[in-house]
C-alpha cells in the first residue's frame, strides 16, 4: 500500500518497564522523524 515499514511499530513493554518505554518512544520517534512527513496514504484534504 506504499506505507514505509518504519511508520508502523509494535513493541511489548510491561507496566514496570518505564525505562524500556522511554527507549522505545525515542526509537520510534527518531525513525518516524527520519522518514519525514507521511504523504503516501493521507486522505486528500478538501
Amino acid at each position, binding site marked *: 500500500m506504499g506505507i514505509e515499514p518504519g511508520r508502523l511499530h509494535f513493541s511489548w513493554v*510491561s*507496566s*514496570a518497564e518505564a525505562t524500556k518505554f522511554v527507549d522505545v518512544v525515542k526509537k520510534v520517534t527518531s525513525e518516524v522523524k527520519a522518514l519525514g512527513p507521511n504523504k503516501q496514504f493521507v486522505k486528500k484534504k478538501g
Partner: protein
Amino acid sequence: MDVYNSGLVQRKAIYVEYAQAVPLKYCIDPENCIYLTRGKCGNCAKVCPAGAIDYEQKEKELTLNVGSIVLAPGFKSFDPSKLDFYNYASHKNVVTALEFERILSASGPTMGHLARVSDKKEPKKIAWFQCVGSRDVNKCDNAYCSSVCCMYAIKEAAIAKEHAGNDLDCAIFYMDIRTHGKDFERYYDNAKDKGVRFVNSRIHSVLPVFGTDDLEVRYVDEAGKLITEVFDMIVLSTGFETPPEVVKLANDLDIDLTVGNFAKTSAFDPVATSREGIYICGSIAGPRDIPQSVVDSSAAASDAGEILSSARNSLTTVKEVVPETPVVGDPPKIGVFVCKCGINIAGVVDVEAVRDYAASLPYVEYVGDNLYSCSQDTQDAMADIIKSKNLNRVVVAACTPKTHEPLFQETLIGSGLNKYLFEMANIRNQDSWVHKNNPELATQKAMDLVRMAVSKVALMEPLEEAELEINQEALVIGGGIAGLTSSQSLAGQGYNVHLVEKSDVLGGQALNIYKTASGEYVQENLTALINKVESNEKIKVYLETEIVSTDGFVGNFRSILSTGGEEKNIEYGVSIVATGASALEPDEYNYKSDERVLTSLELDRRFINNDPELSKINSAAFIQCVGSREPDRPYCSRVCCTHSIENALELKKLNPEMNIYILYRDIRTFGEREYLYKQARQEGVIFIKYSVDNKPEVINRDGRLIINIVDHVLRLPVEIEVDLLTLATAILPPNNKKIAGFYKVPVNDDGMFVEKHAKLGPSEFATDGVFLCGLAHYPKPIEESVAQGKAAASRAITLLAKKKTNTIGTIAKIFSMNCSSCGVCISICPYSAPSYIEEGPFTGKAQINPVLCKGCGLCVASCRSGAINLKGFDNDQIFAQIYALKEAV
C-alpha cells in the same frame, strides 16, 4: 501567623487551614480575634449573610463506648531555636525542612518558586544539616535516629534542583546517609549523579556574613582540610519528637513508653501497646515514613477489628444511592475540567490555554480549571457544576485514569451520572512530567489529548455492571513470619485460610534468627505463632506444596496446588503473597574457602545452638553491605547494620575482652535502633568506614585470617587479624516470575514485587484482590514483617467483608443478528466468556457472560462479522479519537 505554611507568611484571624482542608470551612483564630481577646469589633457577625458566626462555641465533651482504641497522634518536628549555634531563631535564611517543603510547594507562600525568606532572592547555594534534634544527647535529649530525614533532605535537594535548574548547588552535611527504604538507595545514587553534594561532617555552627543575608559554615572535609563555605540558605533537617501532650495522653491511658517517648511494643505484636485493646500507628510507634505508617495503620485496624469481629456491621448505615439521570437520546453536554495539580501540570502546560481551547470544541458546555482536582472541595464543586449546568458527559484532564478514574467516577455517581460517561486526558504522567523542557509542545499535546477525550466521551453511553459474590476464603502463599501472621489475622476475623508453604516447615527465614533488635528471642515467639496457626481450625496448612496454576479474578480465584505430585483444586476470594526472600551466598571475602568466614545467619545459628566456641574468640569482625548497595544490586538490605551490631553486643556479652570491628559504609540503625549503635561504641566495638570503590581485602596468611582496610580516621591502611569474620549479606528475592504471572502483578528490576502505590498502597497490588507482605515486598526486620502481615490481612478483609463486588461495565457484547456462529470468539477468549446460545431464536449464535468478560477486546478484533462491540472502547469511540487527531496533523 500561618501555621500551615510554617509561619512563613501571615494569615488573617479568620482563615481556612489550607486549600485542601476537609471540611473546607472558615474558622476564627481565638488568639488573634480582637472580639474574643478584647471584646471589640464583631464585624464578621454583622456582615455574614448566613449568620454563621458564633462567638460562644466552646469545647464539648463527648462520651463514646468503644471496644478498642487506635492511637495515631503523630509527632512534632524538633524545634531548633534552642540550638542557638545554628542561628535558626535569629536568621531568616536558616529554615527547617518543613518550612523548606512549604517554600517548594505550589500552594506555599511563594507558589512553588524557590526564593529565600529574607530578600526573596533565588538561592544559588543551599546546605542541609542532617540530624538536627536526632542522634544527639549533648545538645538535646534525642538519642534516636529520626529515620526519614536523610531521604527527605535528598528529595528536597533533588526537587530544589528541578525547580531552580542544575546550577543550583545543593550540599547535604551528614553523619551516615540512611536511605534504607524501598528504592531509596537508587534515589540517593541518582541525586549524586545529578550533582547533589554529600559531605560527611556534622556542622558545628553557622555565622551570618556581615552586610549580607548569607551564611558562613566551617567544616573539616574528608581529607582533613578545614573549609569555609558561604551559603544563601540553610535547611535544618529536624527530627521527630513526641510532643508533651501525647506523652500525657499515653500516661493518662496507662501505656508504657520507651526512653525516646515512643510507645513500647513487642516485635511480634508491633502495633499493640502494653495495655490490651489499645493499638498504635504512625510515629507514636517510633520515627517512620509514610509507607510504614500506612502499613501500621492497616495492621492496627486489623488488630482492633479482630477483637471486635463479632460486632461487625452492627452499627452501619446504608449509603444513599443517587438515582441516575437518563441521558440516552439527549445531545452531549460535555464539561471539561483541566487540573493544574499544583505546579505539576501548570508548571509546564499552559492550563488556561488548554481550558480555553477546550471551550471551542463541539458539545462542550462548560470548562474550568482546578488547582487540585482530586481534593474533596473540588470534587464537591464539580458535582455542583455537573448538576447546575445539566452536564451529561465529563472530561477531566489531569493525572492518570489508572489511579484517579475511580475517584472522579464516584463524583459522577454522586451527581446522578452513570460513571462511564467519563474520560480522562492524561496530561500529567504522560505529558507535563515527561516533557518538562518543552512547554510549548507539551501544551499542544495537552490540547490534542483533551480533544481526543472530548470526541470520545461524546460517544460514551451509560453502562451497567453485574454484581458478583466474593468467595469468603483466602489463600496465603508463604509460611514465614509475614504469611503466618496474615493467616492468623484472617482466621481471627473469621475467615477460612489456605496457607501454602513450599518447604517442609513453617517459619521461613525467622527460623535462622537468634534475637530481634529489641532483644526478644525469635525461636520461642516463632514456635508460639506456628502452634497457634497449626491449631487454628480455620487455617488449612499445605506443606511442601506449590501452586501449579491460577485463574479467575478478584472474589473468584481458582488454583491448582501440588503436594508431592498430588494435585488439589482450591477456590478463594483473595490472595496474599508472602513469598519471602533469602540470604545471598557470597563469593567474596574468602567465604567459600575459609570456615572462619560466616554469613550473619550462620552466626545466628551458632548463637541459637549455644556454641561454646564463640566465647573463646579473641577477635571478630563484621563486613557490612556484602552484596548490597553495589552497582548490580543497588538496594540497601535494611536490617544488616542493626543485626551485626546486635550480634557484636552478644559476642561482647560472652567475652567482654573480645576485640570487635565493624567495617561499614554508612551505619543505618534507624529509629530507636540507634541506641544499639551507641551502646556498641561505648562497649568498645570499633567502627571503620570503607567506600564501595575501596573495599576491605581478606587474605589468608599462613593460616591467619587477615583483613586489610584503610582506616577512615587515621587515613592509613590497617591490618586486622580475626578469628571470626561475619559477612552481612544482602537479602535476595526469590524468582517471583511464576507468582507474578499467576496474578499479573509486576516485579521490579531488583526482583521484588511492585506494590500498588509506593507510599499509600504498600501492602496490596494494583491487581484487585491480591495483597503483599513481608520480605517479598522489601527487606525488613521481623516487627515490620509482622505489621505488614497484619496489614495485608486487613486490606484483604476490607474486600471480603463487602461480600459482593461489581464487575466492570466495559465489556464485550454480541449483536446476535450479525453473528455468523463461526466460533472464533469462543476459541480465542482467555477467560472463556463467550459461549453458544442453546435455546431461543438465536440458538447457535455466540453470547458473552458479562461476569467472566474482562473487556480485553480480543474477540472484538477477531470477529469477522463485526458483530461484537466493546462497550467503552467501541470502534466508533476509538475512531473518534483517531479522527480528532486530524486537526492536529
